[in-house]
């Protein structure tokens, strides 16, 4: 039977404004996890009732550890940010389907936006071939070194120009005339929508990791849906981000909102 585990927190540090990196001793999760999957973290008590879905940033199968990089966006993640090494946290996972790594592709483009960047680290670690990583942030970048360690060329765009290219990540892709055989992406929906349109124009297959407000995280409540095409834009079904995703092919998604 599956169950929520009480995982030991090995480390929980502030790495940028409002962004924390937590390392958990979670042997079972590390053994099974794939790039692009997530875990549920639970708050103490019942006041903050629902689990928080957090993507897995890195998997260390040898040492039985996972690393999570999360933004403090509400009361739940604020509680997580106060936890110290040596404390325990309730965790369930790995959940969802990760990226479908296509090893036949020699040239990979990886596009991350803001707090959607973390799951791309494990992906880049596992990808073979050329890895061109494009990251967009409002002002402050995260995880650049992690990507470089795994052999990626990293290109950064910031909206305020405080680091790298001034503008958004799509403008940077266009400016660099980026070429690749496949795109893997995670970030805010407007960014994914724009990159998906660019990918379609350039006839590049693209995988997107979507986000939606969840309750259970395991496919039971049908809360976290997105529109996935059956045939075309008009013939679609609500699929569960947690169970059917969070990774989908960009041409399956109805990008209407």
């Amino acid at each position, binding site marked *: *039977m599956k169950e929520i585990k009480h995982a030991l927190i090995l480390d929980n540090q502030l790495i940028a404004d409002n962004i924390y990196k937590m390392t958990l001793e979670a042997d079972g999760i590390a053994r099974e996890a794939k790039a692009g999957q997530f875990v549920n973290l*639970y708050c103490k008590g*019942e006041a903050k*009732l629902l689990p928080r879905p957090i993507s897995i940033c890195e998997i260390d199968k040898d040492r039985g550890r996972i690393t999570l990089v999360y933004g403090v966006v509400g009361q739940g993640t604020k509680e997580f940010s106060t936890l110290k090494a040596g404390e325990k946290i309730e965790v*369930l996972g790995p959940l969802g389907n990760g990226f479908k790594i296509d090893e036949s592709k020699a040239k990979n483009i990886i596009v991350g936006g803001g707090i959607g960047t973390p799951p791309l680290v494990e992906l880049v670690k596992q990808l073979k071939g050329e890895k061109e990583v494009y990251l967009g942030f409002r002002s402050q970048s995260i995880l650049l070194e992690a990507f470089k360690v795994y052999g990626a060329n990293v290109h950064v765009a910031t909206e305020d120009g405080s680091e790298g290219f001034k503008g958004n990540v799509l403008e940077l892709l266009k400016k660099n005339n980026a070429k690749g055989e496949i795109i893997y992406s995670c970030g805010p929906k407007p960014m994914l929508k724009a990159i998906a349109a660019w990918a379609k124009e350039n006839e590049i297959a693209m995988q997107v990791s979507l986000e939606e407000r969840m309750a*259970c995280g395991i*496919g039971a409540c*049908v809360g976290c849906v997105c529109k996935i095409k059956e045939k075309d834009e008009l013939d679609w079904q609500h699929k569960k981000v947690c169970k059917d995703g969070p990774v989908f092919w960009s041409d399956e998604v109805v990008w209407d909102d």
Partner: protein
Amino acid sequence: MIKEKHNLKVNIAGVELKNPVTTASGTFGSGREYGEFVDLNQLGAVTVKGVSSTPWKGNPAPRIAETYGGMLNSVGLQNPGVEEFIKNDIPFLRQYDTKIIVNVAGKSVSEYCEVVERLSHADIDLIELNISCPNVKEGGVTFGTDVKMAHKVTKEVKRYAKQPLIVKLSPNVTDITEIARAVVDGGADGISLINTLLGMAIDIHKRKPILANTVGGFSGPAVKPVALRMVYQVARAVSVPIIGMGGISTGEDAIEFILAGATAVAVGTANFRNPRATIDVLEGIKEYMVRYGIQSLDEIRGMI
């Protein structure tokens, strides 16, 4: 060592459940997902997510908002329709030694009747008529908040039902007892309550409602006092068995509902926080019975 001499069996309109614990419709799918966390054989019954005559797409996302001690949902009864349900989910659930309660959704009297007629030939144990979902426009809630409509839809559906008929009530009414009496008068063999309370949450940074549907159904531990009060009132107004629900996450919560008059209890939103909540509730009921030397829940049911 707990001796298993106490009797957990309960009877809902002629259907015997091995114990009083079931699931609240819409929180447990058809048992597949939580069946990986708990042994479904241990549950008195599985109450499945609402089914309608044709597939329903449900409401747009976001459908979920957390609130203090609870949550809002505006799923809107997304489901694959009764045919897919019968084909895929009944064979799955029949692998387990548990009763099947099917929640029926509809937007008109004829649609409710169509689904119930179809289910009357299916291998299920009980029907739960959902006249109370707050998330479907022109839908269930108008039936569940209007005495005459609640009576009418129950009476019509009852003509097609071969299995005992439970009617699930909405708490979004002034006097729950008049609705309860109306559905019993219409032929309901049992009552379940409460469905979710209509609620709302606003994102103050975006200055917009969190739910795409603006309003949604409020559930979770925070609603328990309201649910308990309504079960207490309904238990005094009618004599049919009651399945009590609303914020139950422990055995102690369940005992409160049984003391207030519930025959069985359903665990809903608690599953999202604790995938083993159903079993924890069951174990908690057993511990209470052992502690107070209770042989059968009949000894304490409705004693408040």
